[in-house]
Every structure is written in C-alpha cells, then in structure tokens.
C-alpha cells in the first residue's frame, strides 16, 4: 500500500444536497468580498488623502482577489460550467448571496470605516476557522485571505479609534455610522439551514460558537474608540439568502454594465 496523504476533498462529493449547500456557502463568502471590494473601489480618486486613496484601493484589490478564488471554486462546486466571470457579471441581485452589510453605501469616510471594520472582524473569525477545516481548497483560500484580512483589520480598527477618539465631529459621525450599520450585524452570526448543514458535516464553523469571540473583540475596539455599542435588534436582513436592500441592484448595474453590454470584451 502506498502512503500517499489523504486526498483533498474533491470539488463534488456525491451528495447533491450537500454539494449545493457547499456551493451556496462559498458563494456567500465570495459575494461578500466582491461586493465590498466593488464598494471600496468607488473611493478611487475620492479618498481624503492620496495615501488613504491607495490604502482603500489595496483593500479593494485584496477583496476582489479573494472573490475570484472563491467564485472559481463555487463554479466548480456548482458543476454547471460557470466560471468566475459568469458568476460575477451575469447573475442578478436575487442570485447574489453577500451579507446585506457589504452592499451598504460608502457614505462618508467614517461610514466606510465602520462597515469595513465590522466585516473585517467577521472575516477574521470565519477565515481563521475555515483555514483548519478539512475542505483543503477552501482552507487554502481562507489562509491566504486571513493574512490580508489581518491588515484590513489593522487599517479599519486604527481608523475607528482615530475617528471615535478624535474630534467632536469625527466622534459624532462615526457613532452615527455605527448606529446606522449595527442593524445589519445580527446576520453575521445567525445561522440558517446552509450554515447548519455545513457545520454538521464539519465543513464550516458553527456561527454561534464564533459569535462570542467576535463580540469580545468588538467590545474592546469600541471601548478604545470611545464609541457606544448600539442595542441589538431582531434582524430582518437576509442578504445571504438573496434578499437584499435597495442598494445592491445599483451597485451591480455599474459593476456589470461593461460585460453585459459587450459580451466577451477584452482589454
């Protein structure tokens, strides 16, 4: 008998229901990165300083890079021959499975930072957990994304503290952004049937087990930034099930305009 290592989990494992759940799970991660990356790229040329302009563009490129790897994998799990481009540019809003938070408008710089920080802290927990699970393909993507996310978090948390513990106006604005965006946070760690199925199969972390660590980190950062944690409310947001706020359609119309108008265009 040879002693080759255990084979990596193949793209499709033979249980159609599980394969579909895995595809949807990976699409959620991919779409969250893609939509957030697209949002951040709207800042290019409009950053508060040249240095921040480049910083936000770097974050956007990291996120779009993550989305490319994840979309390619999701396409293979789906098994219908759709590649990263088909998934990014030829799906409509109800087929996008990103977190509702990711599609929220940039607003002012403070709002962009709060949105970024909330998703960075979420991605830190998710990627950390995925990087050691037995789906080796997803684990490798998560490990790469985790390194990037650590820097994103350093960036967003640094600014959260600067703005929160800054001037009266910066404090007021960033607290307002936090109050506005907090209603989307219950979606981050509320599992649905896809999360439950993958968690039971040992292919995804149990979201409820990650929530306390996230909550702890968030509390520490908010204390450092002298910001008040808004009250939790029941969550009607279901972006990861394809039910979106009004903002996603507008974002997609910009992002998808060129490939839909000129199919197969190259540059």
């Amino acid at each position, binding site marked *: 008998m040879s002693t080759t290592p255990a084979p990596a989990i193949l793209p499709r494992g033979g249980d159609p229901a599980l394969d579909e759940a895995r595809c949807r799970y990976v699409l959620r991660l991919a779409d969250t990165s893609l939509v957030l990356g697209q949002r951040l790229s709207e800042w290019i040329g409009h950053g508060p*300083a*040249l*240095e921040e302009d*480049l*910083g936000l563009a*770097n974050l956007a490129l990291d996120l779009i890079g993550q989305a490319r790897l994840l979309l390619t994998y999701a396409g293979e799990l789906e098994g219908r021959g759709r590649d990263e481009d088909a998934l990014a540019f030829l799906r409509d809003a109800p087929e996008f499975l990103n977190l509702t938070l990711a599609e929220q408008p940039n607003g002012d710089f403070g709002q962009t930072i709060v949105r970024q920080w909330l998703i960075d802290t979420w991605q830190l927990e998710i990627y950390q957990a995925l990087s050691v699970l037995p789906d080796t393909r997803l684990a490798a993507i998560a490990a790469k994304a985790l390194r990037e996310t650590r820097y994103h978090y*350093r960036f967003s948390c640094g600014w959260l503290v600067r703005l929160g513990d800054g001037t009266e106006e910066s404090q007021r604005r960033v607290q307002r952004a936090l109050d506005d965006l907090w209603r989307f946070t219950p979606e981050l760690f509320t599992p649905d049937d896809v999360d439950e199925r993958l968690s039971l199969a040992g292919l995804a972390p149990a979201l409820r087990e990650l929530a306390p660590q996230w909550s702890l980190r968030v509390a520490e950062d908010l204390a450092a930034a002298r910001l008040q944690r808004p009250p939790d409310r029941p969550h009607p947001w279901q972006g990861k099930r394809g039910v979106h706020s009004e903002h996603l359609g507008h974002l997609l119309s910009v992002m998808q305009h060129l490939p839909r108008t000129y199919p197969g265009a190259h540059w």
Partner: protein
Amino acid sequence: MADEWPLFEVFIRSRSGLEHKHVGSLHAADARMAVEHARDVYTRRQEGVSIWVVRSADIIASDPAEADALFEPARDKVYRHPTFYAIPDEVKNL
C-alpha cells in the same frame, strides 16, 4: 486634510542584508499611520521587507549653499578611492 498632516520620509529595505534606502515621502497623522501609508504607497509591488519612517522635520540636512566648502575639497584627492584593490567575485553589493 493632507495639508494638516506632517511629512514623513520613507526608507525601504528591499531584502534582508541590504540597507534601507530612501524611496520618497508621504503625509500621515503620526508614526503608526506613516508606516501603514508607506506599506500602501511604496510596497505594492513587493519592493520591501522592512520599512523605516522619520518625520521630515527631524532630518538635519547640509546647506546647499555650503556645498562648495563641504564637497569641493575632496575632488582632487583620488587616492582616497580604494581602486587599487582587486574585489573578489564573491563579494556582492559592495
């Protein structure tokens, strides 16, 4: 906003063993932000493995008006160049 941020000079070490080299300058509110900006502005193409920043105001420079007095006297002293030594092939980055 950038007008209110002080200027920093950025030095990047391209790989271990080499010295940090001046690559440019940028604006930042403080030292930590300057390092992050340097990372974002000057290491996007894998230019470095280490970053130094220093406030431009903390650099003490020679006066260009004194250049003649400072540098001209060295011009006719070519014997100070170690050009009479053969440099072994193994020595890099001298």
